[in-house]
Structure formats: C-alpha cells, structure tokens
C-alpha cells in the first residue's frame, strides 16, 4: 500500500498530483489565514502581520492610555464622598437634625478637603507646579473647572469644620459663627458639583468607554459618592437616622439601575465594562454598591437591626471605591481596544450579537 503511494527513486521523492495539490493547499491556507496550523509547528510572529481596513495598523492602539496612577481613582472616591457629606451636613444643619450627624458630616468633608488636593498634586508629573492650574480658568476644560471647584470646596469645608470645632471647644463667638455659616453655605454650593464633576472629567475625553457614557457618569458618580458618605456616617455611629437610611436606599437603588443599564445593552463601546478584569471590577463594585446594601437596608427596616445598616454602609463604601478604580481601569482597556476609534467591527463583537 505505502509503496504504491510513495515513489522512491534513489532516495528522492518524485512529485505527483496529490503531493503538488497538498503544497497548493498549504499555500492557500497561509494566504487565507496568515499562518498554517499543523502539529508541532508554531511559526514565530504568526499570523503574518498585515495592515488593512480590517486589522487597522497591525492592531496597534491609536489612543494613548490615561497616564494616571492610583491617586486619581482614589481622588474620585474621596472627593465624591466628601462632596456628598458636605451637602448632607449643611442640609442636616438647616433642617435641625442631630448635632452629632452634622459634626461628623463636616469632619468627613474636611478630611476629603485635605486628602483630595494631596492626591491630585501627588499624581502630577511636576507636583511643584500645581499652582500653574490657577493661572487660568477655562470653562471648556473640566480639569480646570474641577480644580477651581476643589479649591473652593477645600477652603470652605476646612473652615467650617475648624470654626465648628473651635466654637464647641472655646465657646461660641461672632467671628467663628460667621466663618462657620459662610463656610457651610459655600461647602454646600461647591459640594454639589464637587461630588459629581469627575464624571464629566473622564466623560469629555477621547476614550470611547468614557465619552459614550458621559450622560450617565456624573449621576452614577454622585450616587456612588452619596452611598459612600452615608456609609461613613453610619460607621461613625449615626445609625439611627431615618434620613440617612432613606438616602442610602436611594443611592443603592440607583446603583442597581446603573448595573442593569450596563449589563442590558450590547454596544461594543461598553465591552470594557463587561469583559476582562475591568468588567469584573465594574461588576464587583456594582454589586457591593447596589443590590447588597439595598437588601441589607431593606432587611434592617423590617427587623430594626442597626448592625445590618452598618454592614450596608461598609458594603456601599467598598463598592464606591472599587467602582472608581474599575472605571479608570475600563478607560485603559478602552484605549487599548484599537478597533473602536477606527470603527472596525471585530469578530468578537459579532458573537456578542452586535
């Protein structure tokens, strides 16, 4: 049998039509796929790189990844919580709520007011030149608007907490009361945008996963910050306040909806929010900030167990932290995804039903 197939004359093979057909097949496979799959064969660098409307420029990413390190997502977290705490502290004061709650909210805001600029400055390539941010005010730059908001918020929140502390310790006086009231009003005014502007900051960029969600990010970040601030206040012992419970429930409910929104839509630009490490971070953050605190709070409403509330607060706080890191990580994944800015539909996308 085998002698009939292989013609051996003097140790050399004689070509015949099946052997030549096989060589043509190999060539055709190489042309079609860019590599030939066979046992024991692993061509280095294969498939052969081609630049084309389907592959872009060898699949090299067009966009640059964000140069930010861990300071920036942590700043998003701290700033979001501090802004929401300042708003809650001021409203709580105006509506005559428990003094401890007002005081604690002010301290959270003041802590954020100190930590936030430190983080922002630490991430600069030239920290010593931070003041260059204050050369100009550019309404068309969310970074510029944000820095000025941060400046106003930091000053106001720190002054409020300081004046409140001095007043309680050394007795009230007119100047202290003026600083306290003016500071509180200003930290309310600055706290509102400060708690959510970071959503605009990353939304108004060239990174697809960010700019395609620009309409949702500020609300999402505001809810995340509110959940974290409520959690912090409850951990500080304010676990009897029905207002905090209601706000915590609201924030958790919104985060549930945000998760459903992301999971329910199939646009390719949402891929970094659903696949890979960034997708799992988004999911982890979403579950910790949405369903978990929502169910724990609902349970605590019925049972009256304040320990459940504290756990809900801790979960929302962690969820907020993870969510900020996840969104920045998703931005990295989105910048690496070379198909998106070139408007190339990949095979993986068609499988997802695009």
């Amino acid at each position: 049998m085998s002698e009939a197939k292989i013609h051996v004359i003097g140790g050399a093979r004689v070509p015949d039509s099946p052997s030549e057909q096989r060589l043509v097949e190999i060539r055709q496979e190489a042309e079609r796929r860019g590599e030939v799959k066979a046992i024991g064969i692993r061509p280095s660098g294969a498939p052969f790189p081609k630049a084309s409307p389907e592959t872009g420029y060898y699949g090299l990413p067009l966009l640059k990844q964000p140069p930010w390190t861990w300071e920036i997502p942590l700043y998003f977290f701290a700033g979001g919580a501090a802004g929401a705490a300042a708003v809650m502290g001021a409203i709580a004061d105006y509506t005559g709520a428990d003094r401890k709650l007002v005081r604690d909210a002010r301290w959270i805001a003041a802590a954020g007011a100190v930590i936030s600029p430190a983080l922002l400055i630490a991430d600069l390539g030239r920290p010593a030149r931070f003041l260059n941010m204050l050369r100009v005010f550019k309404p068309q730059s969310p970074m510029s608007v944000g820095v000025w908001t941060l400046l106003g918020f930091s000053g106001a929140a720190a002054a409020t907490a300081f004046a409140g502390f001095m007043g309680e310790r050394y007795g009230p006086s007119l100047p202290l009361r003026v600083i306290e009231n003016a500071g509180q009003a200003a930290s309310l005014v600055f706290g509102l945008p400060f708690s959510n502007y970071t959503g605009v900051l990353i939304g108004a960029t060239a990174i697809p996963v960010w700019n395609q969600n620009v309409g949702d990010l500020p609300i999402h970040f505001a809810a995340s910050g509110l959940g974290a601030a409520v959690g912090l206040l409850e951990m500080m012992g304010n676990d009897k306040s029905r207002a905090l419970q209601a706000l915590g429930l609201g924030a958790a409910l919104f985060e549930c909806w945000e998760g459903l929104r992301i999971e329910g839509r199939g646009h390719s630009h949402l891929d970094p929010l659903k696949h890979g490490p960034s997708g799992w971070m988004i999911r982890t953050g979403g579950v910790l900030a949405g369903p978990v605190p929502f169910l724990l709070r609902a349970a605590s409403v019925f049972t009256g167990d304040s320990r459940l509330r504290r756990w809900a607060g801790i979960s929302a706080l962690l969820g907020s932290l993870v969510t900020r890191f996840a969104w920045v990580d998703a931005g990295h994944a989105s910048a690496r995804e070379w198909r998106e800015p070139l408007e190339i539909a990949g095979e993986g996308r068609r499988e997802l039903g695009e």
Partner: protein
Amino acid sequence: MSVTAFLTDSTLCIGCKACEVACKEWNGVTEDGLDWTGFSYDNTGSVGASTWRHVKFVEHAPEPGIGGNAPEMNSWSFSSDVCKHCENAGCLEACPTGSIVRTEFGGVYVQPDVCNGCGYCVVACPFGVVERNEDDGRAFKCTFCYDRQKAGLIPACAKACPTESIQFGEIDTLRRKAEERLEELRRRGMRDATLYDPVNTSVGGTHAMFIVRGDPRSYNLPPKPEVPTIYLKKGWASSAVAAAVLLGGTLLAFLADGGRNGQRNGR
C-alpha cells in the same frame, strides 16, 4: 504670519526615517524604538512623548501592478505620521494650565515651562499623539518646529525629507497642491489615492494632511476623530441633574425625618 501646514504624501515616502532622525536631533528628543515590534520595519510603533515623527510601514495584501510590485508580492507603503495640529484641538481645550496654546502659525504648542504634567491632554487627544514623559513628568508632542518657524525656517522633518514626501507651506496652497497631486495620481492609475484631512468632523480639519492609498484606517487614521469638547454639554447637563437630585433628595430626607424628630422631641 501665514498659517502653515504639513502635507505628507505616502506615495513619495521611501521609509528612510530621515524625518524621525532630523526631528530627534533638532528637538533633542530622547531615544526610543530600540525594541522589535515584529510589524514590518516599524520598530517605533506610534508617535508619543519621545517620537514626534513616526514612519509607518503599511503592508497590504498582494496587489498587482502599481509601484513596480510583482503580482504575488505584498504591496508596501510608508507614511510619516505626526501631530495633526487640529483646528479644534482636544489637548488645547483640555489643558487646565493654559500651557497648550495656538501659535501664530496655526500650530498647537505645549509650553514646557508651564506644563505641570496633569496628563489630561493625553486622554483628550483623538489621535493618541500627546503623551506624558514619565521621566520628565511633563507632556510632549510635535512643536511644529515653532522655534524654526519663528526664525523663518521650515520644520526639521520637512527639510530633511529627501523625496519631498513631507511638504511644508501655507495651508491653502498645500490644500490646492494636494488636490492637484490626487488628480495626477488618479490619472496614473492610483484610483485608491485619498487625502486625509478630517474637515467634516468636529476636529474641523488639521494642519497635517496625508495623501494615502486605500483605506486610511490601515494607517491608524480614524475615520471620525472628534474633539472631546462635544461631550461637555451632555456631561454638565448630567452633572446639573445629579446635583439637583442630590440637593432635593437630601432636603426631602432630612425634612421628613426632622419633622418626625420634632414631634418626638415635643417641639
């Protein structure tokens, strides 16, 4: 001062990388491109903080005929990439220090003595050009040879180019030249030659135009680059809604709770 531009013609480029060398030498840019990418003769990859001119080596599928190619050989073209110097520049709008400015020649220039390295321009560039130098801390990109232009000279890359693939001149003249060149190329059978100059996007045209053959996407040139300021309206509207809901919700929650507290305390 006249408004100037680059016209980079890939049909004339021979891939010699003289522009990369000239740019690095004149501007004193640090070395890079010492790694193998595995993608043709391109070991630089992309423009960035240490690469302001970058020659792309574009290998297409076999295409018979033009350029002396044998029918079974891959077609091979080169194109020198550079900062696009957008008419509506994302980096310039995003810069919070005012370091990035528009020069009198129409170029977009990062003032190194002002930049504090916040990195926001990096994510604002729809072409992935500007980058933070992690050793130095500041953001860098093509200066459009602002110093040379101020002295009445042409940019280093254009001066070093041996085939006039990189042309430099007054922008309207170059746009006219580009149309003439396209007509000539089409007459000679290169019907796939196109001019890349995204005037009909929010970027509003660039000061670096490219003549390429085939789909510009194989040169990593995006079909619809958008300046990120177009997302501001939606973003700030959402921010206002978020602030209003936070204010209203907090007020409602504490008013409702406060009322109850008041009753409990017999107020």
